């Protein structure tokens, strides 16, 4: 367990989480105007359609897979009667499928962003940073899944990386668990922390704009200019039909 391990697997996670939290507060308070999906559909729609749907669907599936694989301890799946081998088989097949969808979508979007001039000109520096980090995280993750399945033998990340990750949130991470993991997994994890650290400063913040309130709100909204009165129950002067 070198000094680098301590930095990458103990300090970096907490720094990233700190940046994630503080960054979001800053972004919403100081620069809320810039929070948008910044869609480029107006400028190009033919390639966007397959790309963006595959990317987002793949991403949601992959995140779901990570949730199951990392947050749920192997003891839970075993108590449900699922052997390690069965779990591994399921994780690798579904991971390959979801990962492929994500990679295809991401590549379409990336090529589109580079190749189509109208889209390229709308891309900011932070967009390229997010794009690059996503490429690294997705690429390493996919590579690890393939290596885990096809090339090398299976690596049981549920015995090492997963408990270390959960330990971060219980304020008791065991760095030695992850310092022995294959380099591929370590790089994937480090890149993912970096992505999380920079998340609030990029367009990725639009993930928090999922309009759940739309399902229940009334269709026509009114807003009143009247100044809110002290003790007014509707201080923003909004009403609806």
């Amino acid at each position, binding site marked *: 367990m070198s000094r680098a391990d301590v930095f990458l697997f103990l300090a970096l996670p907490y720094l990233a989480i700190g940046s994630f939290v503080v960054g979001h507060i800053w972004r919403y*308070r*100081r*620069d*809320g*105007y810039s*929070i*948008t*999906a*910044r*869609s*480029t*559909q*107006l*400028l*190009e*729609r033919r390639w*966007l*359609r397959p790309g*963006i*749907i595959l990317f*987002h669907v793949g991403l949601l599936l992959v995140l779901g897979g990570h949730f199951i694989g990392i947050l749920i301890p192997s003891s839970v799946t075993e108590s449900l009667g699922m052997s390690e081998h069965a779990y591994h088989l399921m994780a690798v097949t579904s991971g390959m499928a979801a990962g492929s969808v994500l990679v295809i979508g991401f590549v379409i979007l990336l090529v589109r962003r580079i190749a189509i*001039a*109208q889209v*390229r*000109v*709308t891309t900011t520096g932070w967009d390229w940073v997010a794009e690059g980090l996503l490429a690294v995280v997705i690429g390493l993750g996919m590579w690890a899944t393939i290596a885990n399945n096809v090339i090398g033998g299976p690596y049981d990340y549920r015995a090492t990386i997963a408990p270390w990750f959960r330990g971060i949130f219980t304020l008791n991470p065991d760095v030695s668990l992850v310092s022995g993991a294959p380099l591929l997994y370590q790089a994937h994890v480090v890149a993912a922390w970096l992505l999380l650290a920079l998340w609030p400063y990029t367009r990725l913040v*639009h993930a928090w*704009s999922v*309009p759940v*309130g*739309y*399902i229940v*709100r009334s*269709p*026509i*909204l*009114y*807003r*009143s*200019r*009247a*100044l*809110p*009165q*002290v003790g*007014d129950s509707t*201080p*923003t*002067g*909004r*009403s609806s*039909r």
Partner: protein
Amino acid sequence: MRVKAQMGMVMNLDKCIGCHTCSVTCKNVWTNRSGAEYMWFNDVETKPGIGYPKRWEDQERWRGGWELTRGGRLRLRSGPRARRLANIFFNPDLPELEDYYEPFTYRYGDLFDAGPSKHQPVARPISQVTGKDMNIEWGPNWEDDLAGGPTTGPQDPNMAGLEETVRMEYEQVFMMYLPRICEHCLNPSCVASCPSGAMYKRDEDGIVLVDQEACRGWRMCVSSCPYKKVYFNWQSGKAEKCTLCYPRLEAGMTTVCSETCVGRIRYVGVVLYDADKVEAAAATPDEHDLLDAQLDVFLDPEDPDVQAAALAAGITQDWVDAAVRSPIWQLAMKHRVALPLHPEYRTLPMVWYVPPLSPVMNMIEGEGAEADPDDVFPAIDSLRIPVQFLANLLSAGDEDVIRDVLKRLAAMRSYMRTKTVGGAPDPALAEAVGMSAHEVEEMYRLLGLAKSIDRFVIPTTHAEVGGLLDEHQGACGFTDPAGPGPCGALESAEYGDRVAAFHLGTRDEVAHATATPPPQPATRGGDGCGGGGCTCGDVAPGVA
């Protein structure tokens, strides 16, 4: 009865000369910015034509406006909410930039920098999106005055049911101008479609706006507006639209488009309506009844009961007085010569149109029978502009409504001509269209002679209710460093400082400010930015 006031507009198409002054002045004020180059909050289309964006009236394609479900319930044409949420990554109903046009300029520098050569230097067109050379294949107002008419004219959705090929032949060809702005609908489908809840109607005057800070760029408003009058700024990633020049209206001035209208075709005023009736009116089963249903939503401002209810609802006396004098009320309800654009979209639009008559009069005069109503009125069916075309545009295809309006206008002309030329007007002519001689002359004054003071009856916003208007006048527009009004009072400050200043005006401080005189300039109690407590920032800042 829930009385609300609504700003509306009437355009007298009879007098539109298609000069585009409205479009140009509007653009110079509102959309002369990066990302907004292709937007025209006001545009003037030559009809028949496919318009801007191309075939915007084709709701089979764009799914704008409302429809009735089989059970007779009102629903957005773009489907239930779940469909819009499912399409949030990619909106299949959204027009592309080329449906509007790719904005362009010219490399004028080449004209100055060119060295000596055999040929004249040329300023090449370049895209305002990419800055690269481009071929201009479509542009704003590409079909002006029927340019390309034989190709695009028959593709006009309003040509449905007409013998298209015949109508585009040289001897029979017709055209008219249609200036268009946001309709500021009573039942706005853009507002209903916005997943973020960033779009809203202002309670005081019904102006529909986009809260720039709350907009997340989901683009549903763009496709759900059947008039295609909400635009997507590709630079900022936010929706923008016609604001009805609210900073001007609040100060009692009229909109830029109507102020600068050369033909003086535009009328702006207040209408009182019953908000409780809106939903039922929009859900009227038969499309032909939608006009009457909307007229029924409006309230008679001269009715003492209505006036009392309006005052009780917090509408001030000067607004009620303005509603009585409103040219919108007079043209749409009293004289019934103004009609809503495409009422079948069920949004209850509030920019109405007097259908054009001039080509009609030529026909009638050609027959030399303008004095006799028995001869005037049958001629209306052999007009240059087919009644059916106007009906498709202004009355959901109900030709009788158009005939009725055109007869009133024709009768008014004949009546005034006999009065001016012969000195003996025929009251029977007025009675034949169900008007009194006095009403005809009143309508004539409004349509023919009205000065600004009669065309624009605009009560000012009340500072004692709405905050310190003079402090905020024009202070907050598109909250964008390049926007036309990035909080003017702080214009000279650094952008970061300006952003910081927005957030000084938090809700608590505004609430505090109601009790004590507001310190300057930190507290910016709600102005035209429409938002609750705050101006440019916390709740509802820049508005587009």
